[in-house]
């Protein structure tokens, strides 16, 4: 029994919705702070890139998980979409498998790098005094 395409497509759609939420949160925090200030994430004022704000956000566990999820769902959504576009070119079955494997490895590699970056940012923020 296989419903591979049904599962992948469902997750593709779900990832789109999740990205909308997470990217919305990112936009609120990083670009709309002047309009809708979030005190806990930007305690040092309007500028999200103020070092004190960067450190304050970096210490939040929710930020770490938020960015790990955003990286994961964003990569899946984007790379699955790219795979669909490449499949539109009607490659041979062997090439289809190769495309799938390459994109999977690329996605996993970028996810590990992105997740490590999120964790490293928190470690760095916790090590900063004040």
């Amino acid at each position, binding site marked *: 029994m296989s419903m591979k395409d049904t599962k992948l497509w469902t997750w593709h759609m779900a990832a789109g919705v999740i990205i909308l939420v997470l990217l919305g949160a990112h936009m609120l925090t990083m670009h709309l702070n002047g309009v809708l200030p979030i005190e806990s994430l930007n305690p040092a004022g309007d500028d999200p890139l103020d070092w004190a704000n960067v450190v304050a956000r970096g210490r939040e566990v929710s930020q770490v998980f938020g960015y790990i999820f955003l990286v994961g769902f964003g990569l899946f959504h984007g790379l699955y979409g790219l795979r669909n576009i490449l499949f539109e070119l*009607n490659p041979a079955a062997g090439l289809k498998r190769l495309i799938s494997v390459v994109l999977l490895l690329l996605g996993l590699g970028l996810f590990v790098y992105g997740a490590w970056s999120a964790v490293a940012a928190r470690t760095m923020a916790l090590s900063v005094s004040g």
Partner: protein
Amino acid sequence: MSNNGAKEFVFRVRRFDPIKDDSPHYEDFKVPVQPGWTILEGLWYIKENLDSSLSWRSSCRMGVCGSCGMLVNGSPTLACNTQIRDVATDVLMLAPLPNFDIIRDLVPDLAPMFDKHTHLQPYIQRDDHEEMLEPTDQYWQSPEQLEQFLQFSYCIKCGCCMAACPTFASDATFSGPMPLAAGYRYLIDSRDDAFKKRKNLLGSGGVGPWRCHYAGECSAVCPKGVDPARAIQFMKRELVLDYLRLSKAGKRKPAELLPAEKRHGRRDEIPEAPPFTVEGAS
């Protein structure tokens, strides 16, 4: 325009004879079109008066059989269902349906479409084989249940949707709008008991609806208003809901025979059929 109302149009017809020709070419025919003529009638005029070797496929002449699908001025449509004066200026371009091999002139090879149609099992499947073979009564279905698939059952398999589909144009392994709309029609039919089998078939490989990116051309050209693009999106929704364990269709039990309290027999207001006009008929 002549006295009898005829107006001359040029029929620019794509010709291909696999025995003589290496590739298709266009030929012009001047046709004196009478008011009300369909494209099919114009083609008959050419065959009877100008070139008897011109080939196309047609049968019912009333938009029911789906035989005469062809490309008219770049758009797939039925030749019998299209008035010449509605679509032509002076020149009418005619070609066989694209996305299919050409057998000859305006005759496409529709066999791959019917193979895909058959592969999606377009028929009711149930366990009660004896009742299916020797029916004792009708399976009960509510008007609402009928309404779910009725529109998609109007398909006449003309192939216009397949000719308009950009995905099928680039990927011959894609099932295409006609087979998928037929597949959805049975997926959702409350009398059917093969949802699990169908979802596994549709859920993997290029067979299912997933390659459709909703260009919508299939619905735009459908001469019967079937709207295959809608069926394909509904099919996606049903399969996703089933994956999320939310599908009602996936959990349903197949319709049972009409319950006794709903058997009313023949209604009084429906007249009897007229007597046979041929002696000995039964």
